[in-house]
C-alpha cells in the first residue's frame, strides 16, 4: 500500500484490527490469519497479506523470525483509530517515497479543479494524477488511496456518482489531518506563534498536503486551518503591520479571508 501499488483491500480499519490482535498477544502469522480471516468462512481470497504489509510499511508491526507478528509501537498508539492516525501522522515521512504520498500532494494541489470530477477514479483524474506525479497511477490505486486519505483526514468522501460500482470523490479539507499534526508536533498551548515559525515546526508533517515553496497555502490546507479556527482549536490572526505573512486560499466571506501572520494553539 505504501511502497509500490496501492491496494484496496488494505484499508485502515483492517490494519487497526490486525494491530489490536497482535497487541493482545504476539502470534504466528498463520494463527493471526485464522483468527481474522477464518478459513472456513468468507471468500477464498485472503486480504491478510496486504493488510500485514501496510501495517509493516507504516511501522506499526514487525515480523520476528520470519513468521511471528509483533506490535512495533506502544499499545497506546493503537488504543483507537484516532491514536493510530496521530502515530501515522507523526511518522508520515516514513512513507515519503510512496505513491500514496505523491498522489496526495498532486490531488490536493488541484485546488478547485477537483470539483470538476465526481469520483477519485474518474479516468481523466487518474490520468491527471499520473501526469502530475510522473508515476504510473491506475484506477485501483485511486480507489485504494481514497480509504487512507479520508482516514488520515485529507477530506471527506462524497458519493456523487450514484452508480453502484462508482467510488466517491474526496472533497479536500485537511482539518482533521491538521488536528493530528498539532497534537503530535511539539507546539506550546496558548503561545502566539509567528506564522513562519509555526509553518516550520509542522512542515515535516504537512509536506504531504502541500509542498510549501511559497507562502500560498492550497485550498485544502487553508480550509483546514479555517476549520480549526472556527472550531476554536486554534486562533488565526492577521496583524497588518507584520512582515511575516502567509496566505490562505482566498475567501472574503471568512473571518480570515486571506493573509495570516500569527497562530495560537488553544486546547
Amino acid at each position, binding site marked *: 500500500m505504501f511502497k509500490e501499488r496501492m491496494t484496496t483491500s488494505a484499508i485502515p480499519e483492517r490494519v487497526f484490527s490486525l494491530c489490536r490482535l497482535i497487541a493482545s498477544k504476539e502470534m504466528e502469522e498463520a494463527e493471526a490469519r485464522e483468527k481474522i480471516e477464518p478459513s472456513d468462512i468468507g471468500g477464498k481470497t485472503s486480504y491478510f497479506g496486504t493488510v500485514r504489509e501496510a501495517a509493516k510499511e507504516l511501522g506499526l508491526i514487525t515480523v520476528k523470525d520470519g513468521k511471528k507478528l509483533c506490535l512495533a509501537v506502544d499499545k497506546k498508539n493503537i488504543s483507537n483509530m484516532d491514536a493510530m492516525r496521530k502515530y501515522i501522522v507523526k511518522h508520515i515521512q516514513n512513507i515519503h517515497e510512496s505513491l500514496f504520498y505523491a498522489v496526495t500532494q498532486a490531488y490536493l494541489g488541484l485546488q478547485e479543479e477537483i470539483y470538476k470530477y465526481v469520483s477519485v477514479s474518474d479516468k481523466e483524474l487518474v490520468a491527471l494524477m499520473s501526469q502530475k506525479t510522473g508515476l504510473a497511477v491506475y484506477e485501483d490505486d485511486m480507489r485504494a488511496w481514497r480509504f487512507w486519505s479520508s482516514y488520515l483526514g485529507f477530506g471527506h468522501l462524497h*458519493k456523487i456518482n450514484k452508480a453502484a460500482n462508482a467510488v466517491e*470523490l474526496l472533497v479536500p479539507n485537511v482539518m482533521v489531518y491538521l488536528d493530528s499534526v498539532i497534537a503530535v508536533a511539539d507546539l506550546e498551548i496558548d503561545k502566539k506563534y509567528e506564522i513562519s515559525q509555526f509553518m516550520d515546526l509542522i512542515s515535516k508533517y504537512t509536506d504531504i498536503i502541500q509542498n510549501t515553496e511559497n507562502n500560498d497555502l492550497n485550498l485544502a490546507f487553508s480550509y483546514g486551518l479555517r476549520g480549526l479556527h472556527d472550531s476554536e482549536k486554534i486562533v488565526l490572526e492577521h496583524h497588518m503591520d507584520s512582515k511575516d505573512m502567509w496566505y490562505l486560499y482566498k475567501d472574503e466571506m471568512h473571518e480570515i*479571508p486571506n493573509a495570516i501572520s500569527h497562530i495560537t494553539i488553544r486546547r
Partner: protein
Amino acid sequence: MNIAIAKNRMNSVVNMDIITSSEADFLATHVALETIRIHSDRYDGKPEAILNEEQVYDRYISHPGNNHQFLLVMGEPGTGKSHLIRWFAAKFRQDALGNEVILFIRRNDNTLKGTLRQLLDLPEVENIPNKEVYDRLVNAAATIDNRKLRFKIYQEFITEIESDDENEILSNTEKRRLIAFLSDENVKSRLMSEGFVIDRIYKKVSESEDISDRDVVPRFEKADFTVDIDFGDKLIAQGASKNARKMADALLADNENDYELTERVVDYMNTYVDAVIQQCAGLKPGDLEEVFFEIRKELKRQEKNLTILIEDITSFTGVNLALLNSLNARHDGMNEEEGLCRISSVVGTTTAYFNDFRENYQHRVTKFLEIPNNAFGEKAENLYEFIGKYLNVMSLNADVVENWARNGALDEDYPIHECVEGKYWDYYELNDGKRLNLFPFSQNAITNLYVCILEEAHRTPRFLLRDIVERVLKDYIYNRDGFPGFQIERPDHIPGWNPVEHRNHINRNVMEPDESRRLQNFIRIWGNANVYETVDTETNETYLGGINKKCYRDFNLPPISGLKISTNEIEDVKKNSENHDKEGESSKTANTSQQKPSINDSYTEIPNQAQIDYQLGLDTLDVWIAGGYLNVGATTKDVINITRARDEINVFLFSAINWQQEGVSLDNVNKNRLLYKKGLVGFDRQKRGLDQFLIILPADNNTQSLLEAFLAYVTLGRKGDNRYSWDFPGAMRHLYNVQLWLEKNKKKIVDAVNHNGEDEVDYYEYAIASEIIRQILFGVYEGKTYEGISPKAVIAPNLMKKSDNSHSFKWNNLMDIMLKNDKKIKDTIIQYFNIIQGGWKSPMVFLRYNEYIAAVKDVKKKKLSLELDKTDTVGERQEIKDIWGKIAVRIEEVAESERQKASEKLKELKTYVDIDDFDEEELIDLLEKIRAFYSSAEAAHFNIQADSGLINDVKKNAKGICYAIEEVDKAIEVTEPLSVLLKFSSDPLAKMDKLLALCLKLAKDIKYINNDVAKRYEKTNVVDEGHEKAKYVNERQQIMSAKDTVIEWEVKECF
C-alpha cells in the same frame, strides 16, 4: 424627491389617464420614442423609413396642409401607441396652429358615449344643428346600471341568437344547443369572469374608471369556448340541460381535434358583437356618422380644419366601421359639395384589431406608423429618464410645471426639483447635464423591478407607473420602517446574491428575519447583490453593495459592515492570489472599482433556471428559519429542490462518515439505511414525516448553511436528472460549511446510529445468544457448559437440518423456529464484526477479532440473560431481538418438557431394567438372555420372533446407551433450564429409546407366550386330563425352565 409636495401631486402625475391630468405634467414627464417604422401600403412589410417621434410629428402631424390623411398608429398592446398619440396632441396644442381644430379622444373616456361627448364639447361645434338632441343622447343617464351591464350584454347575445333565422355559420340544431349552452349558469359564470369575452366587452362599454389593459379586443376568441373534461363533468353533475351537455361534448371533442366547430361558434358570436354593444350603449351607428358630418360642416363654415387623434380605436367598438367611414370621408373630390372640412386623423389600434377590417380599409390608410415591440423601455436609460421625470414632476409644485409648459416646454428650461429626501441618491443625467434624482429608486432598482414586477405583456408606461412608481412610493411613504415591503409578483427574477454566499453575511449580521429580508431585498434589487464595502477615494463616501451607506439610513435599514476591501488591498490580494482565484478576483475587482450601481443594459435577461431555482429555495429556507414550516418532501416548485438537497445531504452523510473508523458496524449502518429510506436527517418544522428520520436537525443557522450548500449543489451544480457536481462558482465555501458542519455534528450522528435511545446498540448480542442456543438444541455443541462454545464455532459454517430425534415436542418446535432464522443469525454476527471495504455487506470476511471475542465473552458472562423489554427503533435490529425473544421465552418450557419426557421414559425403562449401576457388561449379558429366550420360544413353536436388528443396535450402542441412561438419570434432577438443555443437547433419550424399545417388544412377546401357554394348558386338561398331563410333561418342564431364566432377568412385573 420632495415628499411633502409629492404626497399631494403623486396621484395626478402618475395617473396620466384620468381626465383631470395636466398636459403640462404629461409633457414634463414625456420620454421620447426613438423608433417608429413608417409604412405606406402594408404595415407588415419592410418600412420605408424609421423616424423618431419628433421627425414623425414634423413630417406628418404638424403641417398636414389641405391634404386629407388617415394615419394609423400600429403596434402590439403596450408598445406605447396611446402615449405617442397623446404626445402628438399635446405638442400640436403647444404649437397652437390658428385654423386647426385639434380633437384628442382619450382612452380614459373610451366609451362610445364618452367619445361623442368629447366631440360635442368642442367650442367650435357649439352651434351645430340639432346640438340639443345630440347632447341629450350622450348625456342621458346610462340606460343601465354598470353593475348590471355584464348580465345585459350576456342576455343580448342570447336574444340575438334566438331571433336569428338567417345566419348560416351554424345550423339550427347547433344554434339551439348553443342557446342552451349559453343559458347554463356554469357557462354564464365562466364567460362573465375576468379575462373572458363578456368581461372584455363590458370594459369597452362601461364607464368605469378602472385602469386595466385597455388593449384587449372585445371579441370572442377560441379560448372562450375551450372546455375540458372537468368542465363537462361539472355540467353533468349540476344538471345542465341535454342540449347544453351536447354542445359541451361537441366542443370538447372539437377541442381535441381541429377546432372546426369552435371557430364557427366564435365567428358566429362575433357577428353580434357590434349589435350588442350598440344595444347596450343605446346608440346606433348612424348617430356617430351624423354627429361627425355636422361637426365637419360647422368647421368648414368657420374655415377651419380638423385634426382628430384617437388613442384607441377599440373605444369605438360597436360603431368602429361608422367611425372609419367618417374619418375616411374626404372633403375634396366627389365630396366637395358636401361642404366638409379637411380632416387629418391619427388613430391608434392594435395589429390584431385592425386585421378584422383591414381588407376594406387598408388602401385608405395614408401611412402606417408602426411602433415595434418594446420600443418603450428598449433601453434602460429610457426607463431611468421616464421614472426620473415622474419623480421630478411630482416633486415640483404644479404651477412650476405649468409655467414651463406655457413657455413652450423647452428642454433648456426643464425644471428640476430641489432634493429634500435622497440627496446622496442615485440619479439619471439628461443630455444637457441636468440630474434627475431617482430617490427612492436606484437605476438598478428600476431595471430590476421592471423585470421582477411586470410581466412582459405589462411592460408599458401605464403599468410601470401604477405597479412600480406608485407602489414603491406609497410603500416608502406609508411603510417606511418596513420598506421595501411592497408586493413583488415575480420574486424569482430578483437578482441572486453574487457571490451567492454573501447572503450568509447578512444572515450572520442581522438576526431578526424581517430586517434581514428587508436588507437582502434592498441590496439585491437596489444594489449589486453583494456585500462588498468600498470607499470612493475621491469623495470619501462608503458604499455597501454598490449603494452609498447613507442611503441605508434613509430607509432605517440595519447598519451592517460589509466585506471591506480597499483599492490597495484589491491590488494586494490580486497579486498574492493570482494563481488561485482568478475568477473570484475578477468579480471582486469589478464590483469595487465602481461605486455606483452599473446600468444594466441587459436587464431584460432573466437569470438562468438554476439561479432562479436556487434563489427560490433560499427564500423558502428564509421563511422556514423565520418560524415557518418546511414542506420538504412535496414536489411543489418552492420545495422540490429543498427535498433534493435533503436527499443529497443524506447521501453525503452515508459516504462521508467513516463509520467503521467511528466504531459503527456497517451492518448496523445498513440496517439504519434500510429503515430510514429518506435518509438519516430530517428537519425541525418540516410538515410531514418527522418520524421517518433518525435525527431532526434544528431550524438554525447551522442547518440553514448545510441546506443552502446542498441547495446550491442540486441547482447550481445540477448536471441532469439526479446528477450533480460541485463544479460551480462558490462551491468551495459551501463545501467548507458542509465539512465544518459534519466535523461538529459527526459524533451526534454516529451516536444516534449506534444507540437505541439511551442504550448502545446490542442486537449482535442477541444474535450470538440465539446462535449459542441453536448449537445446543441441534446438538452441534457437545460440551457440558455453554461457556465452552467457542467464538470460532459461533461463526463457523455449522448450520444443520433437523433429523429424527427423541427430543420433546417443544424442543422440536423450537428447532423449527430456529431453522427459519439460522442463516440470518449467523450472517448478522459475521457481518456485524466484518470489516468491509467500499460497500455495506461483503461475502469476504475480515473480522474485528478483538471486538468479536469480547462480545461473545460478554454474552456468556450475562448467561444469555438479555434485556427484552426495550424495543429497538430500527426494525432489522429489532428483528434479531425478536428472534431471540421467541427463543428465550421458550427455553424454560423446552427444558421442562424435555426433562419431563426423559423422566417418564426413564421411569418406564426402570419397569424393565434396574438401572442402578447398570453398565455395558450387564447390558450385553441381558442381550444374551433375550436371544436365549427367543431361541427357546422358537423351539417351543411360539409365534414370536426376535428383532435381531434392534438387539444388534442395542448391542452396538451398549456403552452409549448405558451412558445415556446414566446422563438422563442425572439430567432429570437438574432444574436450571440452560443446564437442562445442555444435558439433553446430544439427545440421550434417543439412545435410551433403543433399549426401551427392545424391552417393550420383549414384554409384549412374553405376555403373548404367557397367554399362549395358558391356552395350551387348558386344552390339555379339557380333553383328557390324565393323558394330557403325561403328554406335555416335557414341554411343561421346558417352559418352567424358561420361566426361571426370565425371573433371573429381574423383569419383575411380567411374572
